[in-house]
């Protein structure tokens, strides 16, 4: 057995070196990366994933897999919220019950796998749907639990003496799993089963009973993670824990655990977890300008790209060393071989790091050229659009007091976050923001989540707090959840704005209002009713069942319908996951199932063209689409009369105004009590309380849509 341990410690040595490379790289790239506070933030944000990864290690060592953990975490989180808020169960009991639910979820997996002998991948693929489905079902997707009791927040997410509670929890869990896997007979048995279930049976192990243990533990850990998450973000809904299963598997495999089972290391999992998390954090913190580059940030997508490259390199190396090792056994010069192996690995890792740096250099140069090109293009576009709208007089009156922005004496750093990067809606916002930031001479950091994990926005805000930005401007994906992080930013003296979607009022200084949820909801309903002549039935295609904004709009759509259009009925709501082809399928099914539906209200930007294409292909001329979307992708349908109205605001102006307001907020010209804001090319805009008003939502139709290009 000593050889196997050697292979493990080798993998760990490699990972430890990787961590050092990351630390050095990001220490050079960022002034605030190597600070205790930043590491504590990373730790705080990694514990919930860490627990799941630890349990996943014990699952994978048996040769199994558990894809349902993220969904189960979501289910436990909403059950905890439901019990506490709606059933008025005291929170400690609710937390206990949530853990019981986690256990039951684990037992269901374990039963189907160990007793019914169904393959773990199949079982957990089914429960992956089942658990998330129950969470969505009981909350109707939208139900949001927040403002948990202080005592709960303190117990599961407190930071006594700035040490997050997650630290002792994680240390305890690591110790417990280490003892279980590496120092107990159960651990040995799990490992043996992973090598050979039949061999384990002949060795006298009760395979059926032993194999159940990791899945039950996995369920329990999912529930504890859910509680840690609930306390950290102070908000849960049915989307908690999305993508956690893949992140956990990545950490486990990167740590050196064999995906085929048998060989596992808990320390490796911890190292793998932090290698990934520090990489993510470092990429958010990195400021390439320190090395003389002209940009202040790296693309957020690099985190995923680098992680998967590391994963390939790590398993490739692991595989190589184990091959070499088996040769070494024959040569018997084991020690010498090992030293040279380590030397070779060090060289390879350093080379890999250099490649990453070199790659970044090329990529960054690419970005810089690109965004410079875009800016010029935008400036022309923006004015053209504004001019045309002004010409036909229907959009907004000519901006009074419009002026060019002047460079400021003390440039500031603005952290501006969309709900997600790589979304065309926000790209248009970014164009406007870049235009304003360039004119003012400010540094604009544009960073946001790349996936659908709802906790990611909080992490980025916390990174910005550590990085020390002047103003944070957020489009809130989860109003209550993001508010927890924004309050902390304000407490640290950072000015906070929200734009596009507001957070809770006490969590920000001002909000940029392009349209209130009520305004959007009633505008959609009014336009729909106009097309429907005030009678008949319609269906809604939304983004996802848990999308916060869409759920808010639907509330006001229904309110407006009930108040003004009693002869109109809403038949069904279908999600399209922001995918045009799924929106098409859903619209098609709606048309076939509800022949009396005369209108589809598409409230996700992907849903409008998707639904319109379905209507077009059905050949029905009596059905129309109204929705919230970007002008460019809807032009053909608007012109063909399928989509009589698309509602939106000028998204470029929204980004532009956000940056202008950030500067004004920092300068002190935008302060409580202000009634107007000088907004460069947008002129003097009204400030109402803590709302900076961009203007009303705008209706694109056949006559005006050609004047817009975004």
């Amino acid at each position, binding site marked *: 057995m000593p050889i196997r341990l050697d292979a493990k410690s080798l993998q760990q040595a490699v990972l430890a070196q990787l961590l050092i490379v990351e630390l050095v790289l990001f220490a050079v790239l960022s002034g605030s990366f190597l600070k205790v506070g930043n590491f504590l933030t990373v730790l705080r944000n990694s514990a919930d994933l860490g627990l799941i990864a630890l349990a996943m290690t014990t699952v994978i060592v048996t040769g199994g897999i558990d894809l349902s953990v993220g969904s189960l975490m979501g289910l436990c989180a909403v059950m905890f919220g439901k019990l506490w808020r709606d059933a008025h169960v005291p929170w400690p009991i609710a937390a206990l019950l949530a853990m019981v639910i986690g256990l039951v979820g684990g037992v269901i997996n374990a039963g189907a796998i160990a007793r019914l002998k169904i393959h773990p991948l199949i079982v957990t693929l*089914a*429960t992956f*749907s089942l658990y998330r*489905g129950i969470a969505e079902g009981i909350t109707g997707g939208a139900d949001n639990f927040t403002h948990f009791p202080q005592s709960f927040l303190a117990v599961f997410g407190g930071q006594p003496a700035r040490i997050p509670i997650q630290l002792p929890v994680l240390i305890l869990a690591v110790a417990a799993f280490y003892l279980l896997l590496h120092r107990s007979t159960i651990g040995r048995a799990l490992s043996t089963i992973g090598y050979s279930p039949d061999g384990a049976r002949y060795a006298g192990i009760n395979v059926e009973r032993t194999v159940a243990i990791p899945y039950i533990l996995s369920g329990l850990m999912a529930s504890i993670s859910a509680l840690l998450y609930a306390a950290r973000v102070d908000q849960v809904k049915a989307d908690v824990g999305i993508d956690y299963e893949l992140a956990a598997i990545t950490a486990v495999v990167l740590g050196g655990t064999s995906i085929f089972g048998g060989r596992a290391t808990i320390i490796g999992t911890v190292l793998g977890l932090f290698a990934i998390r520090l990489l993510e954090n470092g990429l958010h913190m990195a400021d390439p300008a320190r090395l003389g580059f002209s940009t202040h940030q790296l693309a957020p997508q690099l985190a995923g790209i680098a992680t998967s490259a590391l994963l390939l390199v790590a398993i490739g190396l692991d*595989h190589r060393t184990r091959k070499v090792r088996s040769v070494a056994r024959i040569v018997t010069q084991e020690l010498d071989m090992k030293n040279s192996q380590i030397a070779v690995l060090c060289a390879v890792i350093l080379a890999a790091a250099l490649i990453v740096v070199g790659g970044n250099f090329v990529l960054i140069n690419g970005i810089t050229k690109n965004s410079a090109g875009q800016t010029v293009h935008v400036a022309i576009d923006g004015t053209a659009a504004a001019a045309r709208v002004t010409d036909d007089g229907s959009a907004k009156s000519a901006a009074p007091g419009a002026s060019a922005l002047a460079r400021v004496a003390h440039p500031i750093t603005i952290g501006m976050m969309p709900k997600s990067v790589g979304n065309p809606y926000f*790209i248009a916002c970014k164009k406007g923001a870049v235009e304003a930031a360039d004119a003012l001479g400010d540094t604009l950091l544009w960073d946001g989540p790349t996936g659908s994990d709802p906790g990611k926005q909080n992490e980025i805000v916390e990174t910005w707090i550590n990085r020390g930005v002047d103003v944070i401007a957020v489009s809130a994906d989860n109003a209550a959840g993001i508010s927890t992080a924004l309050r902390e930013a304000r407490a640290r003296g950072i000015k906070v704005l929200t734009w596009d979607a507001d957070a809770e009022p006490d969590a920000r200084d001002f909000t940029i209002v392009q349209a209130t949820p009520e305004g959007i909801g009633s505008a959609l309903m009014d336009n729909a009713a106009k097309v429907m002549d005030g009678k008949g039935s319609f269906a809604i295609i939304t983004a996802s069942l848990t999308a916060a904004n869409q759920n808010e709009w639907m509330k006001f759509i229904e309110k407006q319908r009930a108040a003004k259009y009693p002869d109109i009925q809403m038949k069904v709501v279908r999600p399209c996951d922001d995918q045009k*082809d799924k929106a098409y399928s859903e619209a098609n099914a709606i048309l076939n199932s509800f022949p009396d539906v005369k209108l589809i209200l598409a409230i996700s930007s992907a849903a409008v063209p998707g639904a319109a294409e379905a209507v077009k292909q059905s050949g029905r001329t009596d059905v129309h689409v109204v929705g919230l979307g970007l002008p460019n992708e809807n032009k053909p349908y608007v012109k063909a009369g399928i989509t009589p109205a698309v509602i939106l605001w000028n998204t470029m102006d929204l980004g532009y105004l956000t940056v202008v307001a950030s500067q004004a907020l920092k300068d002190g010209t935008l302060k409580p009590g202000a009634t107007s804001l000088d907004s460069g090319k947008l002129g003097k805009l009204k400030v109402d309380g803590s709302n900076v008003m961009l203007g009303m939502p705008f209706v694109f139709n056949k006559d005006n849509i050609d004047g817009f290009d975004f």
Partner: protein
Amino acid sequence: MMSTLYKHRRQLSVGAVYLAMLGLLAVLRPDFFHKQFLGVFIESAPVLICAVGMTWVILARQIDISIGSQFSVCGVLAGVAAQMHAPMVVVVIVALLAGGLFGAVNGFLVGFVELPSIVVTLAMMVLLRESLSWIRQGEEVNQLPDYFQWFGSTQQIGQWIILIVAVLIWMKFFFASRYSTAGRSVFAVGSDFEAARLAGLRPRHVTFAVFVLMGILTGVAALLNAIRFPSVDVKFGTGVELKVIAAVVIGGTAISGGRGSFIGSLLGVLLLGTIGSMLLFLASNHPGATYWERAVQGIIILAAVATDALERKRPA
């Protein structure tokens, strides 16, 4: 007789669940068969094509979770080619070539470097997805020439082309799985790698080949999905890997390799493709039913595979 039934119990149970669903619809909502039935087939065609590839991959005791990202990238590349006014033949070649290339990278790392396929394709999935998001920034490929949608023909003909291509591909590989040497060698490699090698096969080459095939078929599926629309969205195909893997394993192909059937995969695709619209038709008076759809889907999958429990009681 009993043993034949037992051998095909998964296909039978999945088929029974599918027929039960159709029966329920026939009684309660016969209008389902008016248009939606065919609609489900057309929408399932790209999934079926991917499922054919995935059946080979899983038969060879591997897995490929990168096909969702491959699907998106192939579709977008085809769109970009069309946007540059490349002739349709070139567009088709671009999609197939891109898929084949991704498959070859996966196949090389899994087959010749001998890395675990789930890790390789997990990395590939994230790599392709994030790169695409970075390069396109979420922007669709639009203003495509007229010959792109439905290959420039009518909607009616285009839909039939999609269906026929999918059925032909399925039939080709259904027969290949039973009667061709190449097909049987995949079964051999999936059952026992070492034995297959000793029997004179080249298991590494076989592994490489199934991944290349998977990639090419993903390219075909992406293309057939894209030509239904006048523009190509960067999110086409997101999450298709889960649907495809679920369909194949529900259909009775063993994750442990060497055992499985193309009929099962076809039934799996149809079952999963029908659940959503079935619920929409049956619960049309209950707008809230949408929110339980995923839970019902999970239960139906569990019910369809529960016959595996019989395995313990009867020796195979």
